[in-house]
């Protein structure tokens, strides 16, 4: 169980590292509330408020990691897997657009180039 939770946390961190690197930054090695994942999220959301759409998912990943560390069951591990999968899907989708890609609430910069219509 220990190896599984560590592997899942590393997978989640890798997703956010990719996001940070794609924006031309170096992924932080610091931690927030003992989790590097949360520090990476904070770094990744700087200047991109819509990235906070995955803030709770990251916090839930950390929470489930703690549950598994406290000896929780296989169901908790399965839930942590799903949380990490969600983070992957969200961030990968977002990266396709941000200039990086055009995904959901991140699409504003792409479309903001239009003319004003209130004049």
């Amino acid at each position: 169980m220990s190896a599984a939770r560590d592997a899942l946390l590393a997978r989640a961190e890798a997703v956010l590292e990719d996001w940070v690197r794609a924006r031309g930054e170096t992924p932080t090695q610091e931690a927030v509330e003992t989790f590097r994942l949360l520090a990476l999220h904070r770094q990744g959301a700087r200047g991109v408020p819509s990235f906070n759409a995955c803030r709770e998912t990251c916090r839930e990943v950390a929470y489930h990691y703690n549950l598994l560390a406290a000896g929780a069951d296989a169901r908790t591990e399965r839930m942590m897997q799903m949380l990490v999968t969600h983070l992957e899907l969200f961030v990968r989708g977002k990266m396709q657009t941000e200039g990086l890609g055009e995904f959901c609430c991140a699409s504003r910069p792409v479309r903001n180039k239009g003319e004003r219509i209130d004049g």
Partner: protein
Amino acid sequence: MNKYQRVAYYPGCALEGTGHAYNASTKAVGKALGLELHEVADWNCCGAMEVKNVDPQVQTYLSSRVMAIAVHEMNAKVVMAPCNGCYHNLKKAEYDLANDEASRQVVDRISKKAGHETYRAGTLETIHALDWIKDGIGEQELKRRLKGSLKGLKVANYYGCMYTRPRHIFPEKDRGPGSESTSQPHFMDDLLAAAGAQNVDFPLKTACCGGAHTLSDSDTSTKLVLNILQAAEAAGAEVIATECPTCHSGLEMHQVRAEKVLGRKTKVRMLYFTQLLGVALGVGPRKLGVHENVSDGLALLKEKGLA
């Protein structure tokens, strides 16, 4: 009288279309609880997710017009928007008009051009249907009015992402006991628990469903929704309770698409929280529009002896 007992009602476009059942069930629950809704006359679209990508200040104007009608023509103090998108946009407009001079100027200019009074920040309170029931009637009074119970029904409460984000446009949230939380919203959990439902621990309650991207990148949306559905099932839920027509439609449509395209079948059903409350209040499923849902909630309610 509690200020939420009689409110201006802004259903928004979705509730006249795909979210018709949410409209019907919201009105039916209000009637059963003695909460009055007065629809904003000649309301307009809030701009949803689209207009803000072209011109955010025009989007602010669209919401401000709805609020201007509520204040100046209805003398309302409170407007209730059951759709997360509408609710979010009205709150965002309120924030921008209170804090951004450029937004105030654009809204004033367009309002004058359109020939109506300009909405001024701080003159109307925007609430969601969850606030309306939670603070307008409360769990104790809700319990007193129940004619049945959702006992035995395992529910995952899904709030979506726009009900709580961004945090700064919801200054009334995160105020301690009794207030809503932006990180762990619980108003829907509280109301459905009061109606007897068994809420499951569901960690994706505010996760993105890819809703706004559903046409331009359907595959990503389908995968996000499938993950939410599977997580709800893994948490033991039979039903996902929703409080937004866009979230609801997204979950239902992509459940079907996930089976067709990815070959992944899930059994969890989607019902609006107002449909579930309505059942517990003794309102017939047909009046609550349960038969209009894509996922077969009626069969589940019958199976559970609730319909």
